[in-house]
């Protein structure tokens, strides 16, 4: 057996500090997930500066624990408040809330928590098997393949994230433009630095993400201060055992695997996160069910479909992140930022260069899902109380921590200004209805595309593209995907115009 596996596992299990950080990370993640408006992404941003002083395994274990907790916590508010705590739990409301109204809140929560746990474990197991395999394929990738892969991923993000393709591409291109600031790849020419030393190092991914997510979130709350927002939480929930019977569990096995596979698949595709996977999985469960008319009235099938899928997506989203260095959604982009802080470069070589850390992360993910399950079953009443902490005290503190994160990354004030600038851009984009996820992917994939395009241009004479069938396949799929998407976009447009 690969000795890295044992080293990795024991590095987590024998370190009390790492275990403690996983525990805290998962709990904080759940609370963030449960509070509407705070997401897994925000939890990771907030904790990044705390991990600066930790070892790579400790730090990244904490971040993945936050991620798992953050995706899972959303179900609590979806069921008890009828407001999804995170976009990943949107579909949980559909049946979770009616169940709570019927007095079955405990059952809905029990089912949600347990199937979230199963979904996470399924995703992590798939991650453990698929990512080394994918890495060993990707290791043969050269400039052509990476160039094609980056175009392919970008096109997927653009076609899948929004209804409006033009605005999707705009967002991706703007992201790629910001990434060109600094030294050019290969020949280190200064670009758009305007003579500033700070600009030479370019904008940091972390700064970019903090501005786009944390600041825009605060602004969103600010914009709604004078709007009435009253929700009442169900507080008297008591969980007895798991909350559901063994027969109810066995009736959901098919649903479990189908939803887990949907979640995994959507997770792997870049650009679409838990929000889409829970909706899709819910719809599929409804359409294949023997009693579709009962969906929406409070059946456990709906909760199972939504919660299994969004949690299985965690492992799914980590697959391209670890083996190709391509994050699928904002939360994994944030994790990529965390990897960079600890000098770990995700990509096909990650298992060779950082084997022990990788297996440490897998161990941490399994531990975090167990902690998640136990904490949510055991500490439910406490979590419901935390939901009442007013966000108006919490958000300013988060912004302060974000600034600490920006300063601490490379000890310069320039990055804090970056946070403000990207916050303004994020606000402007939201107003203009331009999606921001493609921008992040553009920021990450733009440089990857350029570097490999230029490298390939050097090779073109001695080693033409015809020697690289994989890259041709990627490009062909890209063309087909874009063509199909343009067609459906046009159809949609005609439909809406006809309606008007």
């Amino acid at each position, binding site marked *: 057996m690969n000795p890295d596996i044992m080293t990795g596992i024991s590095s987590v299990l024998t370190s009390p500090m790492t275990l403690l950080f996983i525990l805290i990370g998962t709990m904080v993640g759940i609370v963030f997930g449960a509070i509407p408006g705070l997401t897994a992404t925000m939890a990771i941003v907030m904790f990044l*500066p705390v991990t*600066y*002083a930790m070892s790579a395994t400790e730090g990244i274990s904490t971040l993945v624990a936050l991620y798992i907790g953050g995706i899972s916590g959303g179900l609590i508010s979806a069921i008890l408040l009828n407001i999804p705590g995170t976009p990943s739990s949107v579909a949980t409301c559909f049946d979770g809330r009616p169940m709570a109204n019927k007095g079955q809140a405990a059952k809905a929560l029990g089912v949600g928590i347990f199937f979230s746990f199963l979904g996470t474990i399924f995703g992590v197991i798939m991650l453990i098997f698929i990512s080394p395999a994918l890495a060993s394929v990707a290791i043969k990738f050269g400039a052509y393949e990476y160039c094609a892969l980056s175009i392919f991923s970008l096109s997927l993000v653009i076609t899948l994230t929004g209804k409006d393709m*033009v*605005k999707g*591409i*705009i967002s991706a*291109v703007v992201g790629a*433009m910001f990434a*060109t600031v600094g030294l*050019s790849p*290969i*020949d*280190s*020419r*200064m*670009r*758009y630095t305007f003579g500033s030393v700070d600009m030479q190092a370019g904008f940091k991914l972390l700064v970019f993400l903090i501005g786009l997510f944390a600041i825009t979130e*605060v*602004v969103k709350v*600010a*914009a709604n*201060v*004078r709007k009435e927002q009253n929700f009442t939480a169900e507080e008297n929930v008591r969980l007895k055992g798991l909350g559901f019977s063994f027969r109810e569990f066995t009736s959901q096995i098919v649903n479990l695997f189908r939803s887990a596979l949907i979640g995994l698949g959507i997770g792997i595709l870049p650009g679409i996160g838990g929000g889409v996977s829970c909706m899709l999985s819910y719809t599929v469960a409804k359409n294949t069910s023997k009693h579709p008319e009962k969906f929406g009235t409070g059946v456990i099938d709906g909760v199972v479909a939504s919660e299994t899928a969004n949690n299985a997506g965690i492992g799914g989203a980590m697959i391209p992140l670890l083996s190709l260095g391509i994050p699928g959604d904002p939360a994994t982009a944030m994790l990529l930022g965390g990897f960079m802080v600890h000098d770990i470069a995700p990509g096909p070589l990650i298992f060779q260069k950082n084997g022990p850390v990788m297996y440490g992360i897998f161990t941490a993910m399994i531990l975090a899902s167990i902690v998640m399950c136990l904490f949510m079953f055991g500490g439910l009443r406490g979590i419901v109380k935390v939901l009442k902490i*007013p*966000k*108006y*005290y919490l*958000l*300013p*503190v988060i*912004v*302060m*921590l974000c*600034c*600490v994160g920006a*300063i*601490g990354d490379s000890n310069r*004030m320039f990055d*804090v*200004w970056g*946070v*403000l600038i990207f*916050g*303004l851009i994020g*606000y*402007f984009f939201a*107003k*203009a*209805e*331009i999606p921001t996820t493609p921008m992040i992917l553009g920021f990450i994939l*733009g440089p990857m*595309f*350029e570097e490999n*395009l*230029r*490298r390939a*241009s*050097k090779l*073109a004479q001695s080693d033409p593209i015809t020697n690289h069938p994989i890259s041709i396949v990627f490009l062909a799929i890209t063309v087909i995907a874009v063509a199909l998407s343009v067609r459906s976009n046009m159809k949609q447009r005609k439909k809406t115009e006809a309606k008007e």
Partner: protein
Amino acid sequence: MKTKYKMNMFAGGLLFVFAAAYFILSWQIPNFKGLGAPPIDAKLVPRVWGVLLMVLSLIVFVRGLLEYLRLKKEGKLVKSGVSVKERIIENREVILTFLCLLIYIWLLQPVGFIIMSALYIFAESMILTPKEKRNPLIAAIVGVVAAVAVDFAFVNLLHVLLPAGILGW
């Protein structure tokens, strides 16, 4: 239906100006003429992005323009009747949030992390709290406690350097 032509025209126009400036500035990028320089130089890709964004922003702008002309022809163009002043008042929390952040970052280094963070948290939480729930005392306590605790934790325990400012100890 809410009309979107204004935002589309504004966003498209602004992005176009940005793209054009970016495109023109690409001429300032120095060339690498050494041995082994790749055939595609450091200017090409930025220029591609520039042209692409110019085209796309123009599409968004034209979309807005067409909607405007259509509404005008149909006589459905209604003046919103909201003045700039009213707009600012309507969005005061958003503007104040950005303003607060600007002042916070601006003075962070000269004044120092603890003082500015405490002030920022106090001010921002007052902005975010609905009028009837505002409590300056709690906001001040949250601000001071959070700023001191974070400064202590990061500087002493996690060894992240934060600006000490006028309290320079």
